[in-house]
């Protein structure tokens, strides 16, 4: 069972607000999914190093100038300063 406190802590970590009315429904959804995923715990798998991307050819670790025309990138910004976007202040202290 996922408790109300557990759900509250989880929502806080995820930066999502779960209202009191939504709590029961959200907990029920999560429990239903976790119950289904329980088959993973019941199965044993070989412990080996994952190599999900071994089919990809190795690429040399070379720095490439991807944006030779940096001015193109800044042209969409409303304000720039020293190659940085300048954004408006959002929160007051």
């Amino acid at each position, binding site marked *: 069972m996922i408790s109300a406190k557990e759900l509250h802590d989880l929502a806080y970590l*995820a930066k999502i607000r779960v209202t009191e009315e939504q709590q029961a429904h959200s907990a029920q959804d999560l429990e239903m999914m976790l119950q289904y995923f329980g088959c*993973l715990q019941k199965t044993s*798998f070989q412990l*080996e190093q994952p190599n999900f991307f071994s089919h*990809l*050819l190795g690429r040399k670790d070379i720095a490439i100038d991807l944006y030779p025309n940096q001015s193109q990138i800044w042209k969409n910004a409303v304000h720039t300063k020293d190659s940085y976007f300048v954004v408006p202040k959002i929160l007051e202290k």
Partner: protein
Amino acid sequence: MEIWEYSATQLRQSLDNKEFSSQELIKTLLQRIDQSKLNAFISVLDLENAQEQAYASDERRSKGTSLGFWDGLPIAVKDNICTACLRTTSGSKILKDFVSPYDAHVIEMIKQQGGIVIGKTNLDEFAMGSSGEYSYFGPTQNPCCIGASPGGSSSGSAAAVSGCLVPIALGSDTGGSVRQPASMTGIFGLKPTYGRISRFGLVAFASSLDQIGILGRNIADIAHLLEIIATPDPRDATCTLQKAPSYDDFLAWSWNGKTIGVAENYFHEPGIHPDIASVCKKSLDATHTLGAKVVTIELPEPGIALSTYYVIASAEASSNLARYDGIRYGSQAPLQNLTKDESPLTELYMQTRNLFLGQEVKRRILLGTYVLCEGYARSYYQKAQQARQSIRNQINTILEKVDYIATPTSPIPAFQIGEKVHDPMRMYLCDLFTVMFSLSGHPAISMPIGFTQQNAPIGLQLIGKFFAEKDLLQAADSFPQPGK
């Protein structure tokens, strides 16, 4: 045959033969899109801009300086692929006004060839869904079945191609989002090998699984588009340097001597529609007459693959979507009702995400956060990583013995809008047969092979070896299909 029913290949020939101009073609399709009730598009190119591009293409053709196969042809693009000319919403309220400052790699490639991105197609919010119903912009209709969903998450791309609003469209496939809607709308849907197409400019959902795919009404069109978009790109570290197959290299091909591995238990899974099981089997039997051999194989349990997929995809989504907080990305909620418990910044994040993210996205972020939490990560996330490796190994071993693996694409045909939207597990089960090959990274294609007794399209999924897209496309092209 009407102009909108033409395949891209037929349109190319007609343009070259001067039967009509690109301007006429684009104008006709824009009118058709405007009159359509499918809700397949979120944004459409304005007529003036479209006509300008089409005119330039017509001029090039008349001067003999055409940029290639796609010059002057329309292509629809899923709205989670960045375009500088049209907004990129990802089907979400939080990005409803977002215009990308750059084009995705695939869009750059299309434009280099003179292709015209005619519009951005509807999708489940952030590509999380299997029906198109989780879009902020409303559900897409299935052109084949009135009132039904076209599947998802590339719902708009599938509906636009199947409903003849465009000849071809790009989608994205994380767990089946190209293949499943292709199956439910009676068209082809290719998910290439993980790493075949650059994801630069694709809005990230689950980065170890995301792939850009293609939906089309025939294989030649898909092959032509794959050839130009699957080019090396240093901006995506997973993008291969291998050259994509050229359609010009497609030679006479035969099923004779080829082997197809089939897992018998997949046809008896609880919940599989009986018509899907029988039509898939009949279609596979028909390959015998073409000289192919169907052999029985043992694939991993689909339930294990589905669990593995949803644990990994949700975990990655919770991380990838952390950026949509109203400051780094996306719309911002007006800060109100400050409490003493939270800092204003945390309040802003929470109010923004609460206001602008949809229910399914929040559900998956919560799930992903849960499986990554200390105390649960070992039993869910780490276990899922082990399962993924095991699945990949098993499929690799099978593909050393057979040329292809075949499964039904979806266990169920197109279902009514609203039927599953409130039951996440029932919705997730739509991906039962597709997620496995997203986890393994192998290329897979859904092919239309017939219909249920209620006339809903049925798709068969064919899986090939890593980077064997050419072989896979040729096999799909020669597969027994209705009316062929």
